């Protein structure tokens, strides 16, 4: 067991971390908003944690708070992400579909170039030697694990609540949602902020986990990876993004013996999945279940004389 964790602990924690980032795309998507801004907020959260953990200015804070500086980092990352998402969301969410996706990619790029050039973020080198919260990589399961559990609980309850229903109404038909009394702008911004806060906290937790933080953490490539998780797993269920992240993030590891050919297989799988599973794997499973149920009902319906 110990040896297994030594070899695979980092991978397992990474899978949980990637699941969380996939979920940060899922929340805006429940309100029908295709936002690719997650890496931007992830990067922001990570920089906040890295700076609070290493900058001289925060030394007295670290001495006074001890380990409690870590939850404080998460909290500040969450608040900063929420504020930035609010500011970016209000103008950006006037755009729809692919235009919103493009605007959020631009946001991620602007933030990346900014971090690359600021002194406080360590420029192109980034921030090194971020103090560790746990002795081993595997230890970080105790921060990412509970966060994933809390996020799944949040998503499950949200889906069955008044606000969650408002999100779904906007996703299904924004105009009809307005005519039914739902302030679409307000709930679109809220869904965007929820996704941003999650990505920001994950970033703050990831800074010590990865030990260094630099501008490569928030890139366009990451946006596309998270989008692929959601597309393959399925964007209409809470489990889709998690399943997609676990499958796609472990794939390079499983295909390691194939060396560079694994990138080809990775790409081919993506294409096949998007063509044949438009609702993702979870969506396809759900459909199968419904077909089985209606067949069952038809069979119970009896002799076929009653349509």
């Amino acid at each position: 067991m110990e040896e297994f964790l030594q070899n695979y602990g980092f991978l397992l924690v990474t899978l949980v971390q990637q699941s969380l980032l996939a979920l940060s795309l899922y929340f805006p998507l429940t309100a029908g908003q295709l936002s690719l801004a997650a890496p931007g907020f992830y990067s922001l959260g990570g920089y906040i944690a890295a700076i609070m953990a290493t900058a001289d200015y925060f030394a007295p804070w670290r001495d006074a708070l001890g380990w409690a500086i870590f939850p404080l980092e998460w909290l500040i990352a969450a608040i900063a992400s929420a504020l930035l998402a609010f500011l970016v969301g209000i103008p950006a969410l006037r755009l729809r579909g692919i235009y919103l996706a493009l605007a959020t990619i631009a946001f991620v790029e602007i933030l990346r170039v900014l971090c690359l050039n600021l002194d406080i973020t360590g420029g192109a080198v980034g921030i090194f030697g971020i103090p560790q919260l746990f002795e081993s990589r595997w230890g970080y399961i105790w921060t990412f694990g509970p966060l994933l559990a809390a996020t799944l609980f949040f998503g499950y309850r949200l889906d069955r609540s008044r606000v969650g229903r408002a999100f779904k109404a906007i996703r299904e038909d924004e105009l009809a949602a307005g005519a039914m009394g739902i302030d679409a702008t307000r709930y679109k911004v809220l869904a965007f902020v929820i996704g941003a806060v999650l990505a920001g906290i994950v970033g703050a937790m990831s800074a010590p986990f990865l030990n260094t933080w630099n501008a490569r953490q928030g890139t366009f490539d990451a946006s596309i990876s998270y989008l692929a998780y959601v597309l393959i797993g399925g964007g209409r269920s809470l489990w889709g993004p998690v399943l997609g992240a676990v499958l796609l993030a472990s794939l390079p590891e499983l295909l390691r013996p194939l060396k560079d050919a694994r990138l080809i297989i990775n790409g081919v799988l993506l294409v096949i999945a998007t063509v044949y599973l438009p609702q993702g794997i979870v969506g396809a499973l759900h459909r199968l279940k419904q077909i089985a149920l209606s067949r069952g009902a038809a069979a119970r319906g009896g002799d076929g004389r009653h349509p």
Partner: protein
Amino acid sequence: MGVILEARALQRNFGGLVAVDSVSFAVEEGEIFGLIGPNGAGKSTLFNLMTGLTPASGGTFTFRGETLTGMPPHRIAALGIGRTFQNIRLFKGLTALENVKIARHSRTVTGLLGGVFGSGKSRMEELSVEKKAWEILALVGLADRGTELSDNFSYGEQRRLEIGRALALDPTVLLLDEPAAGMNAAEKQTLTGFIREIRARFNLTVLLIEHHVPLVMGLCDRIAVLNFGELIAFGSPAEVQKNPAVIEAYLGAE
């Protein structure tokens, strides 16, 4: 009784096309008010102006003296103006029950955290939303289909569900855009009775757009006739039927 809705010189231009041309009329509280006219006369545009989905190019529209022109759709809905759509706009990927529950939005207050953590107040509210939604499904005859996706419903069932969804808003005014479209004669008959029933039960004022003339003549207290965006006639069914301008619009001039 008194005036509940009033349009004054309501205008909407789409580029060079005048879809609604300086239309003025008043709707009395509690009446069933019919809007008829040939295709493209501007009837649905008028509904969209009233519910804020299309901004007016000019004129005003008031509800109990309050100006609705310029108000966003969700606020107009919250004031108690519910509607259905000509080309049915249900939330297709959601169940019939969820469709109805969504329309309780403006009558409930639970916020993000209250809903997620299930505070006592939010749980009570959720229970009442659930109860109300099932009552409405029973009212429109879909009580046994609540957990099915609305997309699987037949055309007539979708029209009924859409009326149910609008009723879940607790409306004072109900706008029905071609509620009988695609229904057979028996269904139209049932619908007429149903509209009368809900008007009495919920003290509604009903505006309806309809092409099926016998239904409109039998059901409506007063009728407004639109042609090319202009209001050409206004009055009781009998008066409107005799109006030469109406006969010309429908049958053409001699």
